[in-house]
């Protein structure tokens, strides 16, 4: 069964450093998402991406964040200058191989980001 994959599983970085989190969505999906989950808290929407551009973004997704689909398979989240409060689990999700299935999102296993 196809699945969303994410690398690395755990990233440790120093405050102020740039990090890139990588995701390989399910191959025929058209919509891509990033969410984050601070330990023990709810899942929070960051951004959605369709047709090589951002569709929606939350207030969390400020100028420090950017997303890119550099090729036909990868989808990346970049945090330019990490802060302590960026420490969280970051989930990639994909969905929407056909219009009528737009809303079904499949989540990857997550990348745990620890900012020291």
């Amino acid at each position, binding site marked *: 069964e196809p699945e969303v994959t994410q690398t690395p599983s755990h990233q440790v970085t120093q405050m102020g450093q740039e990090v890139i989190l990588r995701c390989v969505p399910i191959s025929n999906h058209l919509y891509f998402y990033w969410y984050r989950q601070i330990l023990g808290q*709810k899942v*929070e929407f960051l951004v*959605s991406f369709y047709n090589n551009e951002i*569709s*929606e973004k939350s207030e969390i997704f400020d100028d420090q964040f950017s997303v890119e689909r550099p090729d036909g398979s990868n989808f990346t989240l970049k945090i330019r200058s990490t802060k302590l409060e960026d420490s969280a689990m970051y989930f990639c999700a994909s969905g929407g191989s056909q219009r009528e299935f737009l*809303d079904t*999102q499949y*989540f990857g296993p*997550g990348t745990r980001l620890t900012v020291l």
Partner: protein
Amino acid sequence: QQQVKQSPQSLIVQKGGISIINCAYENTAFDYFPWYQQFPGKGPALLIAIRPDVSEKKEGRFTISFNKSAKQFSLHIMDSQPGDSATYFCAGGTGNQFYFGTGTSLTVIP
């Protein structure tokens, strides 16, 4: 503001019992309400979902009840099993943006 409110925060149920988790939403524009199951160290996995044009949806032991006028929906897990022990999140939104509830930690005691 919290777009989707979820309760209870934690739930303990005996094996074979019924687990009930409740959610309420604010935005009447929401048109899709999924429930996700999350095991420790894993990403959320879609369990079951409903659109507001139906009042109930059942898949195996899992049932969503939806009350559009009250802006509430709930997940019922029948014949709860120890393997159902996980965190459950409700969510609501439209095609591109979803808001998650705060999660319910379910423990099913053998």
